């Protein structure tokens, strides 16, 4: 079980904008939680902060409790024992996720060699079995990354994550750069991950609708809504959630708000970060709303103050 308490990340001096602001989230075992947000919302920074992979200039406060132990801000030696054994990280396959100079099999087998101290040949044999489970042919092992398509690379990376036999998987934008047919394959792969806890970061709403169990929406470093997938897509609560769902082509490309103001407005950092674009904005929004509970869901918006 992974629990985040008021996790905040800041780059730079005191008073500068937070990259991630007071995120509190509880992820149960074997749950599939998807973090949805735009570029710049802080979603990747959050994953990196938990894994301890941010540069030294990052100031990280709060707690990240994994199986009863706070793993935030642990020394590097400790984190190295956790990475790969307790939490496996799946990077983007379409970019530089794989080493172009090593064959795929070597890279997929590597975690077993490092963590379980197996021999490479043994690890590669185990990899072959896993590959078939995820719909890839054994021949992939012998190939170099540049001969594989984006979809195959991403699935190989998922297999690599599974090989580590870690109970928790972090996936960073697994569908970036993939076309709809490939995205379907990734959805299939994720559906096969029955034993693992998954925290996936994405900006692709359709992918989240297909693969998630719980949705957490991030806007400009704040978590604004947390909900079960079905309820979220049927009836989004936060104005921002409503805006992004309405804007989907399937829903008619509706957009009711004006163009966003230029970034880095110093006072846009106070209060609710969405108030500048929100059509329900009122004076109360100058004050930062807490997360209100609406049934099993959570929303960070003054509109729901009376309901919780």
């Amino acid at each position, binding site marked *: 079980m992974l629990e985040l308490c008021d996790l905040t990340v800041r780059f730079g001096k005191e008073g500068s904008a937070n*990259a991630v602001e007071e995120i509190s989230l509880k992820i149960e075992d074997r749950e599939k939680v998807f973090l949805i947000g735009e*570029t*710049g*919302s802080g979603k990747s*920074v959050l994953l*990196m902060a938990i894994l301890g992979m941010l*540069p030294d200039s990052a100031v990280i406060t709060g707690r990240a409790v994994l199986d009863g132990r706070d793993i935030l801000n642990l020394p590097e030696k400790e984190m190295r024992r956790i990475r790969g054994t307790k939490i496996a990280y799946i990077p983007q396959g379409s970019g530089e996720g794989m080493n172009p100079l090593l064959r795929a099999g070597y890279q997929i087998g590597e975690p077993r060699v490092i963590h379980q101290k197996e021999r490479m040949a043994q690890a590669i044999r185990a990899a072959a079995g896993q590959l078939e489970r995820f719909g890839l042919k054994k021949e992939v092992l012998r190939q170099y990354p540049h001969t594989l398509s984006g979809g195959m690379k991403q699935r190989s990376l998922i297999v690599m994550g599974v090989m580590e036999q870690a109970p928790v998987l972090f996936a960073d934008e697994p569908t970036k750069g993939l076309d709809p047919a490939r995205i379907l394959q990734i959805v299939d792969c994720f559906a096969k991950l029955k034993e693992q806890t998954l925290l996936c*970061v994405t900006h692709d709403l359709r992918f989240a609708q297909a693969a998630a169990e719980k949705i957490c929406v991030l806007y400009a470093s704040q978590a604004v809504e947390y909900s079960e997938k079905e309820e979220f897509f049927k009836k989004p609560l936060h104005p921002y959630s409503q805006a992004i769902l309405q804007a989907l082509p399937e829903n008619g490309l509706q957009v009711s708000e004006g163009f966003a103001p230029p970034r880095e407005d110093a006072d846009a950092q106070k209060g609710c970060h969405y108030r500048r674009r929100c059509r329900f904005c009122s004076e109360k929004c100058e004050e930062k709303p807490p997360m209100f509970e609406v049934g099993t869901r959570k929303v960070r918006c003054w509109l729901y103050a009376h309901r919780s």
Partner: protein
Amino acid sequence: MKYNRSFYFGIGLLLIFLIMAVFAPVIAPYDPFAHGTPYLRPSVEHFLGTNDVGQDIFSELIYGARVSLTIGIVSSLVITVIGTGIGLSSACFGGRCDRILMKLTSVAMAIPSLPVAIVLAAYLDASIWNLVIAICITAWPSTARIVRAKALELMELPYIKIEKTMGVGGLRIIWKHMLPNLSDIVLTRSVLAISGAMLTEASLSFLGLGVLGQKSWGGILYYAYFRNGIINNYYWWYLPPMICISLSVLGFMLVANRRWRKVEVKGC
């Protein structure tokens, strides 16, 4: 402090040598060409002693900065202009022009630079300009290659493609859009070229092929060697010019290796 600490250290070193070169007549205690008592050890009157004809080594060193730095900087200018010009032309015009220029670059790269420099320096009379020619003739290819690679990258970027689609003229694209975005790499290459040129000049002067009639650090070493300074272990004669050469090259390298101080993490 925007950049890393070693950058400022490099700037400091270079400033010292720059001041040495510019204010040589003011700083040097003696006229470096004035003869006197030879082979004196370091003392209060002569900080670094005197050489085989009694010239004050410390004054020689200070005046030597002028020649060494001048040749380094002028060579670098020539190398940068030629290298950037060829690299850019190759990338922008492509096709046959690219193939011809790259063949030329490969040939120039294959020629051993020091032997050619030696032959040219020996053949032409020893003036500053001829020394510069000898140094530059084989030094421009690496700049050309690197600039060409970066320019080819730039040409694939959307904004250059859009400029072309709009019909912006080739010269404006190169001047306003490509050169400013190449400036980082061109500046780095030119600073590294200075240090390379200074080392080549020092080598040539040490071999006696340097500029006649002027003091340079390599020239001091030439006399230190051929007038028995090294055999007799007159370290105050041969060490200072070596240290000056090394420190100035170090200064240029540190400046070329400038880095931003803060690490930026891209948002997600």
